[in-house]
């Protein structure tokens, strides 16, 4: 039996998170939603996701705080991360690779299928 991939969506906009979850569901990918970085850490403690779909600007600690936290734990440092942000053009891929970021999606230009493609890419 094939394992169903599990993605943690860290997104402070519930409506957008809902859309992401719906998109992932159509591709047979299971997901959960954390509204902020602290909730994400709690949820990762319960179950380590196969990938993280992460917004950058969050209420409270931002994505980089979460990525630093993940990097500090050897068992979590290798979780592939997909950033999904309105500020993609201001982020340097070179800087991001150090955080385990494998892909950056621009919310202003992406289509729902891009999320599935990105998840499949990092899970391969």
């Amino acid at each position: 039996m094939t394992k169903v991939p599990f993605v943690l969506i860290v997104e402070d906009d519930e409506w957008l998170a809902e859309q992401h979850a719906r998109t992932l569901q159509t591709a047979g990918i299971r997901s959960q939603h954390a509204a902020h970085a602290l909730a994400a850490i709690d949820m990762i403690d319960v179950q380590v996701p196969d990938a993280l779909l992460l917004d950058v600007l969050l209420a409270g600690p931002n994505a980089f705080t979460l990525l630093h936290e993940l990097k500090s734990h050897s068992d979590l440092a290798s979780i592939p991360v997909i950033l999904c942000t309105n500020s993609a053009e201001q982020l340097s891929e070179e800087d991001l690779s150090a955080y385990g970021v494998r892909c950056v999606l621009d919310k202003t230009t992406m289509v729902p299928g891009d999320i599935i493609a990105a998840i499949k890419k990092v899970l391969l």
Partner: protein
Amino acid sequence: MKGSRDWSGEVRDRLPFSDLSFAITAAHELKSPLALVRQLSLALESDELTSGERERIVHQILLTSERGLRLTTDLSRASRLEESMFTLEPVNPQQLCEEVAHELTPLYVARGKEIRVSSRYRPVLAVANRDLLRRIMLNFGDNALHYASSDAPVELRANTRNRGDKIRIGVRDYGPAVPIDIWKRLRGALGTDVQPLHDRPQSSGLGLYVAGQFANAMHGCIGATRHRDGATFYVDIDASTQMSLL
């Protein structure tokens, strides 16, 4: 208040954004609702939606558009502040809070959150321009929606200050505490520069800056208090002394 910090004085009389940074920040602020409207619209193209889901997404698009439009209206209003005359009149802050809560309730409900007014018996009147004060409170209410948790309602409340000379109307949210470094940068964003993107929360502070301009036009000021479990954003304006003249 123990465990909280206030900076009302620092917010007043700051230099405005430069024209360019103002435009850049405004563009950034609008990007968020526009990107959401786009994603929600794309979601409508799916054949797998139920009619209930479709209806819900259309409602979300409507509310998000209205939120974006509030910002554009505020921005255009702020740019014309100097050339306009604003009538100051006695305003019942309690009644205004109720109107703002009523206006924001559909957005809060759709987001699974609650907004309410802390009731006060016989509120003191404030001297304000009703429309500008309403816009300030809507702005704070929009801001609180982003940071508030679903567990506790956002509260609007009006109190007297300085032995009755001032009225403070505030919006209190309960949510994850904003880390002190981000708080300091948000504080900076209220009056001076556009902040480095990596370091700031979703709000660039532009909405708060505009609220500050509106408050200044009414001889008031805005400020904020950071609590362990959230924040209060407020506006201080003169209390009406008309009763003492009678």
